[in-house]
């Protein structure tokens, strides 16, 4: 009888190894890659934070939100509103305000949304996200359909975020910080409770847990972390638009989490990097014999997603485990 710990908390050795190698690669990258690739990788890291925040809901608590991009975009917009046209604004108060703002929005929406179950939860989160999308899309005061510029990256006094490498390492620090926080959270009372709610919510209630409060907390924390990612996205690209909160962004986040493998946050990171990297790869395919492979990138991307869902039900991490030969997968 194998004494498998709940696979959530303890990562098999092969995955731990991949993470360490990944961290080394990310640390060394700015010295090898060009400025553009450094920006591309920091964008992947931002999306990895966004995917991990969704994994707290989807992988740990079992709540599938099809509107998680609303909080991502909202934080970006908060930064845009806080940044005056002429000069930068301090990072140290705008980042917390944006993250708390996104968390507050998640708490308010979550209060209504968390009561529903299953498919209806998916649909009602999508409905609320579409409301937030059109709130910004239709109102010129909030930037309208063409969005808003953020002319200056936030000013961090201690280091200069305008420098691409400094911004890269700041994003890397946020990524590692969020990952450690969430891994640690898995071992906390809240983490164990959310884990129990995913497996058997009915029993949790019978044992004395008011599951509504825990699910709302998970929704709020996930919204706040998505806000962190949205803030970084706004700071890096300097341009926020309603599509950041759109249906496509939420759907891509779900893709990344499923693709990577759910529940242990490492999967969400791997999924984010794979998803973005493949998009670039397929678009850069050369023209072979007159047939523009790159133009039909949607065909290759779609086929890859379908293949993964058929042959790697536990996502890329499941593959790495099998590939790495762990027995207790």
């Amino acid at each position, binding site marked *: 009888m194998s004494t498998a710990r709940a696979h959530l908390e303890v990562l098999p050795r092969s995955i731990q190894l991949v993470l360490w190698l990944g961290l080394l690669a990310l640390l060394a990258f700015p010295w090898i890659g060009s400025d553009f690739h450094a920006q591309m990788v920091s964008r992947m890291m931002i999306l990895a934070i966004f995917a991990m925040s969704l994994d707290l809901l989807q992988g740990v608590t079992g709540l599938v939100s099809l509107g998680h991009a609303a909080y991502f975009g909202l934080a970006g917009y908060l930064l845009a509103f806080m940044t005056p046209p002429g000069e930068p604004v301090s990072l140290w108060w705008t980042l917390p305000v944006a993250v708390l703002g996104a968390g507050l929005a998640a708490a308010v929406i979550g209060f209504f949304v968390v009561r529903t179950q299953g498919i209806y939860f998916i649909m009602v989160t999508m409905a609320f996200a579409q409301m937030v999308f059109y709130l910004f899309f239709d109102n010129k005061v909030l930037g309208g359909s063409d969005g808003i510029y953020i002319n200056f990256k936030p000013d961090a006094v201690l280091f200069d975020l305008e420098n691409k490498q400094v911004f890269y390492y700041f994003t890397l620090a946020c990524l590692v910080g969020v990952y450690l926080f969430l891994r640690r959270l898995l071992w906390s009372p809240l983490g164990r409770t959310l884990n129990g709610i995913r497996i058997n919510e009915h029993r949790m209630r019978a044992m004395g847990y008011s599951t509504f409060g825990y699910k709302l907390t998970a929704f709020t924390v996930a919204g706040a972390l998505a806000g962190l990612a949205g803030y970084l996205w706004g700071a890096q690209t300097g341009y926020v638009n309603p599509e950041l909160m759109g249906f496509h962004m939420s759907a891509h986040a779900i893709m990344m989490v499923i693709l990577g493998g759910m529940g242990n946050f490492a999967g969400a990171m791997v999924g984010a990097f794979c998803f973005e*990297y493949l998009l670039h790869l397929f*678009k850069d395919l050369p023209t072979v014999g007159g047939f523009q492979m790159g133009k039909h990138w949607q065909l290759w991307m779609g086929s890859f997603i379908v293949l993964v869902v058929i042959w790697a039900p536990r996502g890329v991490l499941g593959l*790495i485990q099998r590939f790495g030969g762990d027995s207790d997968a």
Partner: protein
Amino acid sequence: MTQPNRRQLLTRSAAVIGAASTGLLLPEIVRAQSNKVRVGFMLPYTGTFAPLGVAIENAFRMALDEQGGKLGGREIEWFKVDDESEPSKGVENASRLVQRDKVDILVGTVHSGVQMGIQKVARDSGVLSLIPNAGVHAATRALCAPNVFRTSFSNSQPTRALGKVMVDKGHKKAVWITWKYAAGDEAFEGFKESYTAAGGTIVKELGLPFPNVEFQALLTEIAALKPDAVACFFAGGGAAKFIKDYAAAGLKGKIPLYGSGFLTEGVLDAAGPAADGIYTTLHYSDSLDTARNKAFRLAYAKTFKLQPDVYAVQGYDTGLLMIQGANAVKGDLSNKKALYAAMESAVIDSPRGKWSMSKQHNPVQDIYLRVVENKENKVVGVAAKALADSGAGCRMA
């Protein structure tokens, strides 16, 4: 699968990471600096605006091929990225061309949200950015820049010629209808300015969410308001549907329909007879009776087996503008001052008629009045001569 020893595990995982990172670097190593001019297309090759992206690229290449396929005597290396008309990826895709491919010239794009992303990168990087379509005002107003040139139109230009035409035809009371998004609002700005200036009154401003195409409710509203005429801004698939619904609701014969030219551009075979009799104002028309236009249409149809539209003309003009600029500095694109001065003062002999560049780098061009007759926009006259965009708020650095 027996438990592999640590060493074997290490090598396999390292291989995975190694492959991934080299894949990222590969394009980097290949990018040796050659003396070719690097031209980057950032256009929609998928989604609703795909045909526009293709038309612009075709016509741009045709313009250059007519001059021997060179720019100021230098060979050209082409780069492309599909912007999917997705604004959230605008900055990312533009940076790909500017920072990774290090293009000298960025040609793009169609969707105004994506254009805002390009504008950000262009203003930060100083790359020469040519806008072949997106009419967003900011690009040649508040966010104008010496290295940004537009060869198409500003959103309010076509409709600024519409107001006077409608009043001249005796329509004192009009209803305006469009999608509620930036392009629609800016088109209304032009119509409101010209129509009220010419003495017309706007009875009501109707709007529906983008990209909703269920017009019945608002058509009923129009019928109830009984205006003298209706003015609108729609484009693409939605425009074809609006024309057909307008006719099917019986309004076609009773309340004349006017619009910005994009209502009837590239959708006439989809709209069919319902489009007949619609008056529109645009800086081009397929049936412009000039030798230049006929020559262009013949050449384009022969090369690409497609009928050119206004988007092809704009792509073609972008090519002509670039040729004039490059020849003036004999291919030395790094001499920015001389290049921009030459492009600013360029007069483009375009199929739409000669036009010149305004100080804010937006075309000063004639706007034609056209009417649809059996699937063609017949030119009726010039609605506005050498119309320039206001360029308000542009401080050319």
